[in-house]
């Protein structure tokens, strides 16, 4: 862990504030993300997680604060801008088109072309080959590259979306609640994928409100509450209970948990 913190962060968000009219969604949030780490962003609904990652991925411009990407101050004009810089977001739902084949999905918006008689055609051969290879690396055995995404499980879809982002050169991978709608086994698959991606030296920002999912793969944990950071903790320095309490905002949760038998 210490070796990681010695080199420079790939992305640094400093005192980010974001106001929507009279609503203060973010009130000074600072987060650093290092290459090869899985940085978990935790928080209850309405804590500002979504606003924060949308600022990171160029959807929103911060009202106040600075963003440093690879040490340089950055101001993204849009998601496309951030994507070109190497910041990829995998959304919970809006990642894949079920009616289309895995290979067509994988190269959607980045189709490889091969010229024949001067006309650029979709290079299906190359696309199919790459898709099959990348899926095998992630441990998904496709029937064929023409298999529709709709036939994959939710976890496999997330994995396809993640490996697509990695294949197209993501340096920072933002995962917006990738496990929230998944079953136990599928969640395990996605977490394993996150682990593989991190080992390739890619910075992963993992948004979740499930403490156990965060602890399974996270290197560092930042908790957001009501638009503010409650601090960043290293792996091993914090217990699941402490994380849970921070997310929910303390006392009321203790009382609630008592009445529920400590299962939340």
């Amino acid at each position, binding site marked *: 862990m210490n070796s990681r913190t010695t080199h420079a962060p790939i992305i640094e968000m400093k005192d980010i504030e974001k106001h929507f009219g009279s609503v203060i969604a973010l009130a000074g949030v600072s987060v650093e993300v290092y290459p090869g780490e899985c940085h978990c962003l935790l928080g209850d609904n309405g804590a500002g997680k979504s606003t924060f990652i949308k600022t990171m991925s160029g959807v929103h411009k911060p009202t106040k604060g600075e963003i440093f990407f690879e040490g340089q101050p950055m101001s993204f004009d849009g998601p496309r801008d951030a994507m070109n810089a190497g910041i990829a977001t995998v959304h919970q739902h809006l990642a894949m088109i079920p009616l289309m084949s895995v290979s067509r999905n994988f190269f959607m918006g980045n*189709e490889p072309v091969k010229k024949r008689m001067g006309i650029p055609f979709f290079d299906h051969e190359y696309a199919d080959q790459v898709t099959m290879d990348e899926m095998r690396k992630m441990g998904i055995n496709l029937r064929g590259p023409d298999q529709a995404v709709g036939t994959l499980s939710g976890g496999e879809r997330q994995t396809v979306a993640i490996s697509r982002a990695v294949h197209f050169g993501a340096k920072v991978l933002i995962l917006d609640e990738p496990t929230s709608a998944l079953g136990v086994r599928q969640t395990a698959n996605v977490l394993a994928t996150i682990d593989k991606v991190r080992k*390739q030296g890619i910075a992963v920002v993992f948004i979740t409100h499930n403490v156990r999912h965060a602890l399974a793969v996270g290197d560092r944990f930042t908790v957001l509450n009501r638009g503010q950071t409650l601090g960043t903790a290293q792996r091993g320095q914090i217990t699941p209970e402490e994380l849970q309490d921070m997310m929910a905002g303390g006392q009321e949760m203790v009382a609630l948990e008592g009445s529920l038998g400590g299962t939340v």
Partner: protein
Amino acid sequence: MSETAQPTPAPDERVKDLGWRRALIRPELGGIVGTIAVFFFFLLTAYDSGMFNAQGIMNWSVVSAQFMIIAVGACLLMIAGEFDLSVGSMIGFSGMMIAIFSVTLGWPVWMAIVVTFAMALAIGALNGFIVIRTGLPSFIVTLAFLFILRGFTIYLPQTIERKTIIGGIREAAEGDWLGAAFGGKVLQGAFHWMGDIGIIGVFERGTRAGEPVVDGIPMLIVWAIVLVIFGHIVLTKTRFGNWIFAAGGDAEAARNSGVPVNRVKVLMFMFTAFCATVFATCQVMEFGSAGADRGLLKEFEAIIAVVIGGALLTGGYGSVLGAALGALIFGVVQQGLFFAGVESSLFRVFLGVILLGAVILNTYIRRMITGER
């Protein structure tokens, strides 16, 4: 990298290997089955009626080709997630504009055709822009244009010529190079030769005695084939084709992946208008006149052909070849019932039955392919 050394995971034991059946499971399957069924039916019931001699084949081929031309445009637009209900009115409007330009204003026919195509593409783009900008369903926007264009198609000739049919286009188009590209015929030599050696019949009396009963392939059919091939290649073999699928499958996901969804949709509205105008130009050149009621209900016929061909009404899935087969089924049934001597009103009953059967089969096939539930 340890990833590359990973063994291939074992095949999922819950996935049944369908083997040869997999090759059959394709979007066009419904259309293929329907085509075989329809031809089988008419070979049995109408073989002696002349439906399958040269004249008969040309008869249903021309009708099918008409459906195909508009079905290609409607198909690509539907896969891109939109509808165009103004196709029929666009056919009437384009035909009427060609007539007004060439007959009333006396322009050369090629110029009338070029300007009409430009107008049609502009109207198609306008349809698209309104849909994109307002976010209204294309169903409503193009329904408005169904009335607007039809209204102009009736109003303009009435005001200018005091009638709703403008004739004299054939005379105006005599010797016009672009007119011939829509109203002419090809392979006349081959058909004369086939007539000479007796493969196809020849006229036995009258002024055309000795000439073959079918003396060439109308440009209408050539246009249909060219458009089907063009549409199929664009859809399945180019990156733009991938964008068409993506735009109709899930516009938001496509945008997130960097697909220019708006541009794709506007271009598809323009292409649909283009196809309608090809239809109109061929029709005007063939009849030598333009009528205010031309193209009535053609939008629904195009959509029916596309749906028989396996496209999903809500977009993101379909096949141009399927749509072409849908158009063929449509044309063969419409003309075949006439050859078989069936009361012509029963055409609608037949059409309804085929539509229902094809859609049920297509839905079943699509679920097998896409895993929808």
